Protein backbone atom coordinates (compact mmCIF):
# COMPACT_ATOMS: atom_id res chain seq x y z
CA UNK A 1 0.00 0.00 0.00
CA UNK A 2 2.76 2.43 0.99
CA UNK A 3 4.37 1.69 -2.37
CA UNK A 4 1.21 2.49 -4.32
CA UNK A 5 0.23 5.57 -2.37
CA UNK A 6 2.43 8.15 -4.15
CA UNK A 7 1.36 6.73 -7.52
CA UNK A 8 -2.28 6.98 -6.57
CA UNK A 9 -2.18 10.40 -4.98
CA UNK A 10 0.47 12.58 -6.61
CA UNK A 11 -1.57 14.04 -9.41
CA UNK A 12 -0.98 17.61 -8.30
CA UNK A 13 -4.60 18.65 -8.88
CA UNK A 14 -6.87 20.61 -6.49
CA UNK A 15 -8.73 18.24 -4.20
CA UNK A 16 -12.35 17.70 -5.25
CA UNK A 17 -13.47 17.55 -1.66
CA UNK A 18 -12.42 16.79 1.88
CA UNK A 19 -13.14 13.51 3.68
CA UNK A 20 -12.68 12.81 7.36
CA UNK A 21 -12.75 9.06 8.00
CA UNK A 22 -12.32 6.73 10.97
CA UNK A 23 -13.22 3.39 12.49
CA UNK A 24 -15.83 3.85 15.20
CA UNK A 25 -15.49 3.59 18.97
CA UNK A 26 -14.62 0.15 20.31
CA UNK A 27 -13.60 -1.20 16.91
CA UNK A 28 -10.00 -2.02 15.99
CA UNK A 29 -10.55 -3.16 12.40
CA UNK A 30 -9.00 -0.75 9.94
CA UNK A 31 -7.95 -2.68 6.84
CA UNK A 32 -11.17 -1.87 4.97
CA UNK A 33 -11.24 1.74 6.18
CA UNK A 34 -7.64 2.21 5.00
CA UNK A 35 -8.54 0.82 1.60
CA UNK A 36 -11.44 3.25 1.29
CA UNK A 37 -9.23 6.16 2.42
CA UNK A 38 -6.59 5.27 -0.13
CA UNK A 39 -9.06 4.93 -3.02
CA UNK A 40 -10.59 8.28 -2.08
CA UNK A 41 -7.19 9.93 -2.14
CA UNK A 42 -6.56 8.31 -5.46
CA UNK A 43 -9.80 9.79 -6.77
CA UNK A 44 -8.68 13.27 -5.76
CA UNK A 45 -10.13 13.77 -2.29
CA UNK A 46 -8.16 15.26 0.56
CA UNK A 47 -8.41 12.62 3.30
CA UNK A 48 -7.97 13.06 7.04
CA UNK A 49 -7.78 9.69 8.77
CA UNK A 50 -8.70 9.67 12.47
CA UNK A 51 -7.56 6.07 12.87
CA UNK A 52 -9.45 3.42 14.83
CA UNK A 53 -11.46 3.30 18.06
CA UNK A 54 -12.68 6.84 17.33
CA UNK A 55 -14.95 8.38 19.96
CA UNK A 56 -18.01 10.30 18.70
CA UNK A 57 -16.56 13.52 20.19
CA UNK A 58 -13.43 13.12 18.11
CA UNK A 59 -15.52 12.86 14.93
CA UNK A 60 -17.53 15.90 16.01
CA UNK A 61 -14.41 17.96 16.74
CA UNK A 62 -12.90 17.02 13.40
CA UNK A 63 -16.05 18.13 11.60
CA UNK A 64 -16.07 21.40 13.54
CA UNK A 65 -12.40 22.16 12.99
CA UNK A 66 -11.71 20.77 9.54
CA UNK A 67 -15.05 21.50 7.92
CA UNK A 68 -14.99 18.44 5.61
CA UNK A 69 -17.54 17.75 2.87
CA UNK A 70 -17.78 14.11 3.89
CA UNK A 71 -17.53 12.11 7.09
CA UNK A 72 -16.85 8.36 6.69
CA UNK A 73 -17.35 5.83 9.45
CA UNK A 74 -16.34 2.18 9.38
CA UNK A 75 -17.48 -0.68 11.68
CA UNK A 76 -16.65 -4.37 11.35
CA UNK A 77 -18.34 -5.70 14.45
CA UNK A 78 -22.07 -5.96 14.98
CA UNK A 79 -21.34 -4.80 18.54
CA UNK A 80 -19.85 -1.50 17.37
CA UNK A 81 -22.33 -0.59 14.62
CA UNK A 82 -24.48 1.45 17.06
CA UNK A 83 -21.53 3.81 17.60
CA UNK A 84 -22.28 5.13 14.09
CA UNK A 85 -25.73 6.20 15.22
CA UNK A 86 -24.24 7.68 18.41
CA UNK A 87 -21.84 9.76 16.35
CA UNK A 88 -24.63 11.06 14.13
CA UNK A 89 -26.61 12.02 17.22
CA UNK A 90 -23.56 13.79 18.62
CA UNK A 91 -23.27 15.73 15.35
CA UNK A 92 -26.93 16.75 15.63
CA UNK A 93 -26.42 17.86 19.22
CA UNK A 94 -23.42 19.91 18.21
CA UNK A 95 -25.49 21.55 15.48
CA UNK A 96 -23.14 20.23 12.80
CA UNK A 97 -25.20 17.56 11.09
CA UNK A 98 -26.14 19.79 8.13
CA UNK A 99 -22.56 20.78 7.48
CA UNK A 100 -21.41 17.34 6.38
CA UNK A 101 -22.57 14.30 4.41
CA UNK A 102 -22.16 11.07 6.36
CA UNK A 103 -21.04 7.84 4.66
CA UNK A 104 -21.01 4.50 6.44
CA UNK A 105 -19.53 1.11 5.61
CA UNK A 106 -17.93 -2.10 6.89
CA UNK A 107 -18.89 -5.74 6.39
CA UNK A 108 -21.97 -5.97 8.67
CA UNK A 109 -23.40 -2.57 7.68
CA UNK A 110 -26.37 -2.48 5.30
CA UNK A 111 -28.39 0.13 3.42
CA UNK A 112 -31.23 -0.48 5.86
CA UNK A 113 -29.00 0.25 8.85
CA UNK A 114 -27.68 3.35 7.13
CA UNK A 115 -31.22 4.64 6.63
CA UNK A 116 -32.22 3.81 10.17
CA UNK A 117 -29.44 5.81 11.80
CA UNK A 118 -29.91 8.72 9.38
CA UNK A 119 -26.64 8.51 7.49
CA UNK A 120 -26.55 9.90 3.95
CA UNK A 121 -24.97 6.98 2.11
CA UNK A 122 -23.77 3.40 2.42
CA UNK A 123 -21.34 1.60 0.12
CA UNK A 124 -20.48 -2.07 0.20
CA UNK A 125 -16.90 -1.64 -1.06
CA UNK A 126 -14.16 0.88 -1.73
CA UNK A 127 -14.82 1.28 -5.45
CA UNK A 128 -18.49 2.09 -5.06
CA UNK A 129 -17.62 4.29 -2.07
CA UNK A 130 -15.65 6.52 -4.45
CA UNK A 131 -18.57 6.75 -6.90
CA UNK A 132 -20.95 7.61 -4.08
CA UNK A 133 -18.56 10.22 -2.66
CA UNK A 134 -18.21 11.89 -6.06
CA UNK A 135 -21.96 11.99 -6.33
CA UNK A 136 -22.33 13.47 -2.85
CA UNK A 137 -19.95 16.34 -3.60
CA UNK A 138 -21.47 16.85 -7.04
CA UNK A 139 -18.33 15.92 -8.99
CA UNK A 140 -18.55 13.97 -12.26
CA UNK A 141 -18.03 10.19 -11.92
CA UNK A 142 -14.74 8.89 -13.20
Amino acid at each position, binding site marked *: *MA*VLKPLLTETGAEPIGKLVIGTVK*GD*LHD*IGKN*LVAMMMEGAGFQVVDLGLDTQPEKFVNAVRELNPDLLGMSAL*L*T*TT*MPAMGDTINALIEAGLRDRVKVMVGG*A*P*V*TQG*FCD*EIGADAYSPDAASAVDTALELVGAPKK
Partner: protein
Amino acid sequence: MTPRESQSAIMTRSAAERYAERHRRYTTALRNGKPDRVPIRPFVAEFTARHAGVTCQQVTHDYRLAFEAVRRTAMDYDWDAVVSNMVYCWTGLTEAIGLKYYGVPGLHVPKDVGFQYREPPEEEAWMPPEDYDALIGDPTGYLLNVWLPRVSRDVVAPGAPNTARNNLSFLSGGMAMMSYFNAFGEQNRRLREECGVVPAIAGILKAPLDILADKLRGYLGLCSDLFERRDKVRAACEALMPHLFHVALSGADPNREVPIGFWMHRSCVPLVSPDDFNEFFWPTLKPIVLELWRLGHQVLFYAEGNWDAHLETFAQLPEGSIVFHVDRTDIFRAHRVLGHKFCLSGGVPNALLSYGRPEQIRARIRQIIDGVARDGGYIMDASAIIMNDAKPDNMRVLTDFTHEYGVY
Protein backbone atom coordinates in the same frame (compact mmCIF):
# COMPACT_ATOMS: atom_id res chain seq x y z
CA MET B 1 -34.45 -46.96 43.78
CA THR B 2 -35.51 -43.93 45.79
CA PRO B 3 -37.98 -41.57 44.08
CA ARG B 4 -35.17 -39.11 43.65
CA GLU B 5 -32.97 -41.67 41.96
CA SER B 6 -35.72 -42.85 39.67
CA GLN B 7 -36.49 -39.28 38.71
CA SER B 8 -32.88 -38.66 37.86
CA ALA B 9 -32.79 -41.91 35.88
CA ILE B 10 -35.72 -40.68 33.80
CA MET B 11 -34.04 -37.35 33.26
CA THR B 12 -30.78 -39.00 32.36
CA ARG B 13 -32.52 -41.32 29.96
CA SER B 14 -34.32 -38.53 28.27
CA ALA B 15 -31.11 -36.51 27.97
CA ALA B 16 -29.54 -39.61 26.44
CA GLU B 17 -32.43 -39.91 24.03
CA ARG B 18 -32.23 -36.28 23.15
CA TYR B 19 -28.52 -36.67 22.59
CA ALA B 20 -29.00 -39.64 20.29
CA GLU B 21 -31.62 -37.79 18.26
CA ARG B 22 -29.58 -34.59 17.94
CA HIS B 23 -26.40 -36.49 17.27
CA ARG B 24 -28.07 -38.36 14.42
CA ARG B 25 -29.51 -35.13 13.02
CA TYR B 26 -26.22 -33.22 13.22
CA THR B 27 -23.92 -35.94 11.92
CA THR B 28 -26.30 -36.86 9.09
CA ALA B 29 -26.22 -33.26 7.88
CA LEU B 30 -22.41 -33.08 8.33
CA ARG B 31 -22.18 -35.99 5.92
CA ASN B 32 -24.35 -34.09 3.46
CA GLY B 33 -27.34 -36.32 4.18
CA LYS B 34 -30.97 -35.49 4.90
CA PRO B 35 -31.91 -35.78 8.59
CA ASP B 36 -35.42 -35.39 10.07
CA ARG B 37 -35.04 -31.61 10.13
CA VAL B 38 -32.41 -28.91 9.65
CA PRO B 39 -30.00 -29.08 12.61
CA ILE B 40 -29.20 -25.88 14.52
CA ARG B 41 -25.62 -25.23 15.57
CA PRO B 42 -25.09 -21.54 16.37
CA PHE B 43 -21.51 -20.45 17.06
CA VAL B 44 -22.51 -18.52 20.16
CA ALA B 45 -19.78 -16.59 21.95
CA GLU B 46 -20.62 -13.70 24.33
CA PHE B 47 -24.32 -14.23 23.64
CA THR B 48 -24.21 -17.04 26.21
CA ALA B 49 -23.19 -14.54 28.91
CA ARG B 50 -26.10 -12.32 27.97
CA HIS B 51 -28.47 -15.27 28.19
CA ALA B 52 -27.09 -16.36 31.56
CA GLY B 53 -27.32 -12.80 32.91
CA VAL B 54 -23.61 -12.38 33.58
CA THR B 55 -20.99 -10.02 32.17
CA CYS B 56 -18.33 -10.72 29.57
CA GLN B 57 -15.81 -10.17 32.35
CA GLN B 58 -17.37 -12.95 34.43
CA VAL B 59 -17.32 -15.57 31.67
CA THR B 60 -13.78 -14.61 30.69
CA HIS B 61 -12.47 -14.73 34.26
CA ASP B 62 -14.24 -17.94 35.29
CA TYR B 63 -14.41 -20.70 32.71
CA ARG B 64 -16.76 -22.76 34.86
CA LEU B 65 -19.26 -19.94 34.57
CA ALA B 66 -18.58 -19.74 30.83
CA PHE B 67 -19.17 -23.49 30.47
CA GLU B 68 -22.36 -23.25 32.49
CA ALA B 69 -23.59 -20.36 30.36
CA VAL B 70 -23.01 -22.45 27.22
CA ARG B 71 -24.91 -25.44 28.63
CA ARG B 72 -27.78 -23.28 29.79
CA THR B 73 -28.10 -21.42 26.51
CA ALA B 74 -27.99 -24.60 24.43
CA MET B 75 -30.64 -26.28 26.61
CA ASP B 76 -32.95 -23.29 26.90
CA TYR B 77 -32.90 -22.73 23.14
CA ASP B 78 -33.06 -26.42 22.27
CA TRP B 79 -30.10 -26.38 19.88
CA ASP B 80 -28.60 -29.53 18.42
CA ALA B 81 -24.93 -28.67 18.75
CA VAL B 82 -22.76 -25.90 20.18
CA VAL B 83 -19.07 -25.15 20.58
CA SER B 84 -18.05 -26.11 24.13
CA ASN B 85 -16.82 -22.58 24.83
CA MET B 86 -16.49 -19.90 22.15
CA VAL B 87 -15.37 -17.37 24.79
CA TYR B 88 -12.17 -19.37 24.76
CA CYS B 89 -9.89 -16.75 26.30
CA TRP B 90 -9.56 -17.47 30.04
CA THR B 91 -8.01 -14.74 32.19
CA GLY B 92 -6.45 -17.36 34.49
CA LEU B 93 -4.31 -18.59 31.64
CA THR B 94 -3.55 -15.27 29.92
CA GLU B 95 -2.52 -13.65 33.20
CA ALA B 96 -0.51 -16.68 34.40
CA ILE B 97 1.87 -16.17 31.50
CA GLY B 98 1.32 -12.41 31.13
CA LEU B 99 0.06 -12.74 27.57
CA LYS B 100 0.21 -9.34 25.88
CA TYR B 101 -2.10 -9.80 22.96
CA TYR B 102 -5.53 -10.16 24.51
CA GLY B 103 -7.64 -7.28 25.73
CA VAL B 104 -9.49 -8.85 28.67
CA PRO B 105 -12.92 -7.53 29.73
CA GLY B 106 -12.74 -5.68 33.02
CA LEU B 107 -8.95 -5.37 32.77
CA HIS B 108 -8.18 -3.81 29.42
CA VAL B 109 -11.62 -3.30 27.86
CA PRO B 110 -14.96 -2.51 29.52
CA LYS B 111 -16.48 -5.41 31.45
CA ASP B 112 -19.32 -5.93 29.04
CA VAL B 113 -17.26 -6.03 25.88
CA GLY B 114 -15.95 -9.39 24.64
CA PHE B 115 -12.25 -10.25 24.95
CA GLN B 116 -10.24 -9.19 21.94
CA TYR B 117 -7.09 -10.03 20.11
CA ARG B 118 -5.03 -6.91 19.50
CA GLU B 119 -2.74 -6.81 16.55
CA PRO B 120 0.46 -4.81 17.10
CA PRO B 121 1.40 -2.07 14.59
CA GLU B 122 3.48 -3.26 11.63
CA GLU B 123 6.83 -2.17 13.02
CA GLU B 124 6.15 -3.98 16.31
CA ALA B 125 5.00 -7.29 14.76
CA TRP B 126 5.65 -10.34 16.98
CA MET B 127 7.96 -11.60 14.28
CA PRO B 128 10.23 -9.11 12.45
CA PRO B 129 11.13 -9.96 8.83
CA GLU B 130 14.73 -10.85 9.81
CA ASP B 131 13.37 -13.86 11.70
CA TYR B 132 12.13 -15.79 8.66
CA ASP B 133 15.15 -18.07 8.52
CA ALA B 134 14.88 -18.97 12.21
CA LEU B 135 11.17 -19.78 11.78
CA ILE B 136 11.82 -21.80 8.64
CA GLY B 137 14.69 -23.73 10.28
CA ASP B 138 12.72 -24.85 13.34
CA PRO B 139 9.12 -23.58 13.54
CA THR B 140 8.19 -25.19 16.87
CA GLY B 141 11.49 -24.15 18.45
CA TYR B 142 11.00 -20.63 17.15
CA LEU B 143 7.51 -20.41 18.64
CA LEU B 144 8.72 -21.63 22.02
CA ASN B 145 12.07 -19.84 22.30
CA VAL B 146 11.52 -16.61 20.41
CA TRP B 147 7.83 -15.96 19.87
CA LEU B 148 6.57 -16.92 23.34
CA PRO B 149 8.99 -14.62 25.22
CA ARG B 150 7.86 -11.78 22.93
CA VAL B 151 4.13 -12.22 23.49
CA SER B 152 4.52 -12.76 27.23
CA ARG B 153 5.40 -10.16 29.86
CA ASP B 154 6.99 -12.82 32.06
CA VAL B 155 8.69 -15.47 29.94
CA VAL B 156 12.37 -14.71 29.30
CA ALA B 157 14.15 -15.89 26.17
CA PRO B 158 16.73 -18.69 26.49
CA GLY B 159 20.12 -17.22 27.29
CA ALA B 160 18.70 -14.14 29.02
CA PRO B 161 19.09 -13.92 32.82
CA ASN B 162 16.43 -16.03 34.52
CA THR B 163 13.80 -14.40 36.74
CA ALA B 164 11.42 -15.66 39.41
CA ARG B 165 8.53 -14.46 37.27
CA ASN B 166 9.77 -16.57 34.38
CA ASN B 167 9.85 -19.69 36.57
CA LEU B 168 6.46 -18.90 37.99
CA SER B 169 4.95 -18.26 34.58
CA PHE B 170 5.83 -21.78 33.46
CA LEU B 171 4.57 -23.26 36.72
CA SER B 172 1.30 -21.37 36.94
CA GLY B 173 0.85 -21.30 33.17
CA GLY B 174 1.27 -25.07 33.00
CA MET B 175 -1.16 -25.59 35.85
CA ALA B 176 -3.66 -23.20 34.32
CA MET B 177 -3.36 -24.86 30.95
CA MET B 178 -3.87 -28.28 32.48
CA SER B 179 -6.92 -27.38 34.50
CA TYR B 180 -8.53 -25.44 31.65
CA PHE B 181 -7.90 -27.99 28.93
CA ASN B 182 -8.85 -30.93 31.12
CA ALA B 183 -12.07 -29.18 32.01
CA PHE B 184 -13.14 -29.31 28.36
CA GLY B 185 -13.49 -33.10 28.64
CA GLU B 186 -15.85 -32.69 31.55
CA GLN B 187 -17.71 -29.89 29.78
CA ASN B 188 -18.25 -32.09 26.73
CA ARG B 189 -19.45 -34.95 28.91
CA ARG B 190 -21.95 -32.68 30.65
CA LEU B 191 -23.13 -31.26 27.34
CA ARG B 192 -23.80 -34.78 26.12
CA GLU B 193 -25.09 -36.45 29.25
CA GLU B 194 -26.88 -33.65 31.08
CA CYS B 195 -28.01 -31.46 28.22
CA GLY B 196 -28.24 -33.99 25.41
CA VAL B 197 -26.38 -31.54 23.18
CA VAL B 198 -23.56 -32.40 20.77
CA PRO B 199 -20.19 -30.65 21.18
CA ALA B 200 -20.03 -29.24 17.63
CA ILE B 201 -16.33 -29.36 16.80
CA ALA B 202 -13.11 -30.79 18.18
CA GLY B 203 -9.61 -29.51 17.53
CA ILE B 204 -8.36 -26.49 15.68
CA LEU B 205 -6.70 -25.91 12.35
CA LYS B 206 -5.23 -22.75 10.94
CA ALA B 207 -3.70 -22.40 7.48
CA PRO B 208 0.04 -21.68 7.35
CA LEU B 209 -0.47 -18.40 5.45
CA ASP B 210 -3.17 -17.30 7.90
CA ILE B 211 -1.09 -18.01 11.00
CA LEU B 212 1.77 -16.06 9.46
CA ALA B 213 -0.49 -13.01 9.10
CA ASP B 214 -2.43 -13.60 12.28
CA LYS B 215 0.07 -14.17 15.06
CA LEU B 216 3.51 -13.64 13.52
CA ARG B 217 3.96 -10.94 10.86
CA GLY B 218 0.60 -9.16 11.12
CA TYR B 219 -1.51 -8.44 8.07
CA LEU B 220 0.49 -5.43 6.87
CA GLY B 221 3.79 -7.19 7.48
CA LEU B 222 2.61 -10.11 5.39
CA CYS B 223 1.51 -7.75 2.60
CA SER B 224 5.04 -6.29 2.44
CA ASP B 225 6.52 -9.78 2.49
CA LEU B 226 4.35 -10.78 -0.45
CA PHE B 227 6.15 -8.05 -2.40
CA GLU B 228 9.62 -8.24 -0.96
CA ARG B 229 10.35 -11.81 0.12
CA ARG B 230 8.00 -14.22 -1.55
CA ASP B 231 10.44 -17.14 -1.34
CA LYS B 232 10.63 -16.73 2.45
CA VAL B 233 6.84 -16.64 2.73
CA ARG B 234 6.60 -19.87 0.76
CA ALA B 235 9.32 -21.59 2.79
CA ALA B 236 7.74 -20.42 6.08
CA CYS B 237 4.32 -21.74 5.05
CA GLU B 238 5.84 -25.07 4.12
CA ALA B 239 7.78 -25.24 7.37
CA LEU B 240 4.66 -24.57 9.42
CA MET B 241 2.66 -27.39 7.83
CA PRO B 242 3.76 -30.28 10.11
CA HIS B 243 3.28 -28.17 13.24
CA LEU B 244 -0.23 -27.07 12.28
CA PHE B 245 -1.15 -30.57 11.14
CA HIS B 246 -0.03 -31.94 14.48
CA VAL B 247 -2.01 -29.33 16.44
CA ALA B 248 -5.14 -30.16 14.41
CA LEU B 249 -4.76 -33.89 14.84
CA SER B 250 -4.04 -33.82 18.55
CA GLY B 251 -7.34 -32.09 19.33
CA ALA B 252 -9.47 -34.00 16.83
CA ASP B 253 -12.42 -36.20 17.78
CA PRO B 254 -11.11 -39.75 18.34
CA ASN B 255 -14.50 -41.11 17.23
CA ARG B 256 -14.28 -39.09 14.02
CA GLU B 257 -17.85 -37.88 14.36
CA VAL B 258 -17.51 -34.10 14.56
CA PRO B 259 -15.21 -31.96 12.42
CA ILE B 260 -12.02 -30.10 13.24
CA GLY B 261 -12.70 -26.33 13.30
CA PHE B 262 -10.67 -24.50 10.67
CA TRP B 263 -10.65 -20.71 11.17
CA MET B 264 -10.15 -18.98 7.84
CA HIS B 265 -9.38 -15.38 8.69
CA ARG B 266 -7.36 -13.66 6.09
CA SER B 267 -6.77 -15.35 2.81
CA CYS B 268 -9.75 -14.40 0.67
CA VAL B 269 -10.14 -11.45 -1.69
CA PRO B 270 -9.50 -8.57 -1.01
CA LEU B 271 -7.16 -9.47 1.86
CA VAL B 272 -5.07 -11.73 -0.38
CA SER B 273 -5.07 -11.80 -4.19
CA PRO B 274 -6.29 -14.90 -6.04
CA ASP B 275 -2.73 -15.46 -7.29
CA ASP B 276 -1.32 -15.46 -3.77
CA PHE B 277 -4.13 -17.75 -2.67
CA ASN B 278 -3.14 -20.18 -5.42
CA GLU B 279 0.58 -19.86 -4.83
CA PHE B 280 0.78 -19.87 -1.01
CA PHE B 281 -2.47 -20.54 0.79
CA TRP B 282 -3.84 -23.51 -1.05
CA PRO B 283 -0.70 -25.60 -1.76
CA THR B 284 0.27 -25.47 1.92
CA LEU B 285 -3.25 -26.16 3.18
CA LYS B 286 -4.61 -28.81 0.83
CA PRO B 287 -2.14 -31.56 1.86
CA ILE B 288 -3.11 -31.04 5.51
CA VAL B 289 -6.81 -31.35 4.75
CA LEU B 290 -6.20 -34.44 2.59
CA GLU B 291 -4.07 -36.11 5.25
CA LEU B 292 -6.62 -35.40 7.99
CA TRP B 293 -9.33 -36.83 5.75
CA ARG B 294 -7.21 -39.92 5.04
CA LEU B 295 -7.16 -40.40 8.82
CA GLY B 296 -10.95 -40.03 8.89
CA HIS B 297 -11.22 -36.43 10.10
CA GLN B 298 -13.58 -33.98 8.48
CA VAL B 299 -12.65 -30.27 8.55
CA LEU B 300 -15.14 -27.44 9.06
CA PHE B 301 -14.09 -24.54 6.83
CA TYR B 302 -15.23 -21.54 8.89
CA ALA B 303 -14.87 -19.24 5.90
CA GLU B 304 -14.91 -15.70 7.29
CA GLY B 305 -15.46 -13.04 4.65
CA ASN B 306 -16.29 -13.72 1.03
CA TRP B 307 -14.75 -16.79 -0.64
CA ASP B 308 -16.69 -16.66 -3.94
CA ALA B 309 -13.44 -16.59 -5.89
CA HIS B 310 -12.24 -19.89 -4.44
CA LEU B 311 -15.23 -22.20 -4.37
CA GLU B 312 -14.14 -24.09 -7.49
CA THR B 313 -10.82 -24.83 -5.79
CA PHE B 314 -12.52 -26.24 -2.69
CA ALA B 315 -14.78 -28.32 -4.92
CA GLN B 316 -11.74 -30.42 -5.86
CA LEU B 317 -11.50 -31.89 -2.35
CA PRO B 318 -12.81 -35.44 -1.77
CA GLU B 319 -16.53 -35.77 -1.21
CA GLY B 320 -17.51 -35.27 2.44
CA SER B 321 -14.02 -34.20 3.55
CA ILE B 322 -15.15 -30.72 4.57
CA VAL B 323 -18.14 -28.71 5.73
CA PHE B 324 -18.26 -25.22 4.24
CA HIS B 325 -19.46 -22.43 6.51
CA VAL B 326 -20.85 -19.35 4.78
CA ASP B 327 -20.18 -15.85 6.09
CA ARG B 328 -20.30 -13.39 3.18
CA THR B 329 -19.83 -15.94 0.44
CA ASP B 330 -22.88 -16.12 -1.85
CA ILE B 331 -24.63 -19.09 -0.26
CA PHE B 332 -26.53 -20.01 -3.42
CA ARG B 333 -23.38 -20.06 -5.49
CA ALA B 334 -21.69 -22.08 -2.74
CA HIS B 335 -24.55 -24.55 -2.98
CA ARG B 336 -24.25 -24.80 -6.77
CA VAL B 337 -20.49 -25.32 -6.67
CA LEU B 338 -20.06 -27.32 -3.46
CA GLY B 339 -23.49 -28.63 -2.49
CA HIS B 340 -23.23 -31.93 -4.36
CA LYS B 341 -20.16 -32.87 -2.32
CA PHE B 342 -20.27 -31.02 0.99
CA CYS B 343 -22.60 -29.84 3.71
CA LEU B 344 -22.96 -26.06 4.12
CA SER B 345 -23.70 -24.02 7.23
CA GLY B 346 -24.42 -20.42 8.21
CA GLY B 347 -25.50 -17.51 6.01
CA VAL B 348 -27.80 -15.61 8.39
CA PRO B 349 -26.21 -12.13 8.74
CA ASN B 350 -25.33 -11.26 12.33
CA ALA B 351 -26.58 -7.72 11.87
CA LEU B 352 -30.02 -9.22 11.25
CA LEU B 353 -29.89 -11.04 14.59
CA SER B 354 -28.91 -7.82 16.35
CA TYR B 355 -30.90 -5.16 14.56
CA GLY B 356 -33.34 -7.01 12.30
CA ARG B 357 -37.04 -7.64 12.70
CA PRO B 358 -38.48 -11.13 13.13
CA GLU B 359 -40.06 -11.16 9.66
CA GLN B 360 -36.69 -10.28 8.08
CA ILE B 361 -35.06 -13.20 9.88
CA ARG B 362 -37.83 -15.56 8.82
CA ALA B 363 -37.51 -14.37 5.23
CA ARG B 364 -33.76 -15.07 5.20
CA ILE B 365 -34.23 -18.51 6.73
CA ARG B 366 -36.93 -19.36 4.21
CA GLN B 367 -34.63 -18.24 1.40
CA ILE B 368 -31.75 -20.38 2.72
CA ILE B 369 -33.80 -23.49 3.37
CA ASP B 370 -35.59 -23.28 0.01
CA GLY B 371 -32.40 -22.44 -1.82
CA VAL B 372 -29.78 -24.73 -0.35
CA ALA B 373 -31.25 -27.11 2.22
CA ARG B 374 -33.98 -28.91 0.26
CA ASP B 375 -31.97 -32.12 -0.02
CA GLY B 376 -30.33 -31.91 3.39
CA GLY B 377 -26.66 -31.09 3.84
CA TYR B 378 -27.26 -27.78 5.59
CA ILE B 379 -26.79 -26.67 9.22
CA MET B 380 -28.45 -23.51 10.53
CA ASP B 381 -26.11 -20.84 11.94
CA ALA B 382 -25.36 -17.14 11.74
CA SER B 383 -22.64 -15.90 9.40
CA ALA B 384 -20.10 -15.01 12.06
CA ILE B 385 -19.73 -15.68 15.75
CA ILE B 386 -22.62 -14.46 17.83
CA MET B 387 -21.69 -11.86 20.40
CA ASN B 388 -23.66 -10.18 23.17
CA ASP B 389 -25.39 -7.77 20.81
CA ALA B 390 -27.63 -10.49 19.31
CA LYS B 391 -31.21 -10.05 20.55
CA PRO B 392 -32.57 -12.98 22.56
CA ASP B 393 -35.94 -12.62 20.81
CA ASN B 394 -34.27 -12.84 17.43
CA MET B 395 -32.31 -15.93 18.47
CA ARG B 396 -35.63 -17.42 19.49
CA VAL B 397 -37.09 -16.60 16.07
CA LEU B 398 -34.08 -18.20 14.36
CA THR B 399 -34.57 -21.33 16.44
CA ASP B 400 -38.34 -21.65 16.31
CA PHE B 401 -38.67 -20.88 12.64
CA THR B 402 -35.94 -23.37 11.73
CA HIS B 403 -37.73 -26.00 13.80
CA GLU B 404 -40.94 -25.21 11.98
CA TYR B 405 -39.81 -24.58 8.42
CA GLY B 406 -36.80 -26.91 8.45
CA VAL B 407 -38.70 -30.17 8.79
CA TYR B 408 -38.01 -32.63 5.97
